[in-house]
């Protein structure tokens, strides 16, 4: 399960997608909007994706995770649009027979997602907005 959604992320479908009688562990990760960053008071985050490529890159992360760790299944869902403080922008679920593989694969998946999946984050804070990772932020 690799999806981009524009509403609040529901973890239940991810758990359903990875659950299996052979699994002894399901590890989940939620990335949530933090109310502060780099000394700024963050009011909300706004995500934009290149959806077709983002899904394809998420699928590749899943394939790489499966080739490196003995996991049963992996699901990744990313939310786009405005994500208010405290809400999740990304959810990952990984199942495996033994917990170590699921923990490691989940850690790999979120790190890799942030490096390669074409999704961008604009931070709205008190006094301005900035595209994270770019040099084009502006205060006004």
């Amino acid at each position, binding site marked *: 399960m690799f999806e981009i959604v524009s509403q609040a992320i529901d973890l239940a479908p991810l758990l359903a997608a990875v659950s299996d009688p052979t699994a002894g562990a399901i590890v989940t990760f939620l990335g949530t909007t933090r109310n502060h960053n780099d000394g700024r008071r963050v009011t909300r985050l706004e995500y*934009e994706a290149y959806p077709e490529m983002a899904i*394809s890159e998420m699928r590749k992360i899943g394939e790489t995770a499966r080739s490196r760790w003995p996991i049963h299944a992996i699901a990744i869902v990313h939310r786009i649009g405005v994500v208010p403080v405290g809400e999740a922008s990304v959810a990952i679920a990984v199942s495996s027979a033994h917990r170590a593989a699921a923990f490691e694969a989940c850690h790999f998946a979120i790190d890799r997602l*942030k490096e390669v999946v074409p999704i961008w984050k604009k931070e709205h804070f008190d006094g301005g907005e900035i595209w994270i990772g770019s040099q084009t932020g502006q205060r006004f």
Partner: protein
Amino acid sequence: MDIRVRFFASIRQKLRRDEGACSLPAGATVGDLLEHLCREFPALVDMRRSVSTAVNREYADAHHVLADGDEVALIPPVSGGSGDSHV
């Protein structure tokens, strides 16, 4: 040959458009396309070093030779997920 170009995030905002079309001679590379775009949109020059490119939804470097009908995306630094800032 005709190439479709897509712009996202900081680039889309700076150029005030999310896509464009380019006509290039056969054998042109991604690098040639970038030079063409920098002439058309001088605002891109400052961003060029930090931009990655994808051809038909796969990352591709400046040496990649384009074909008629290709879709090229200009990809500013990505920052999906949440939590730690990624700069």
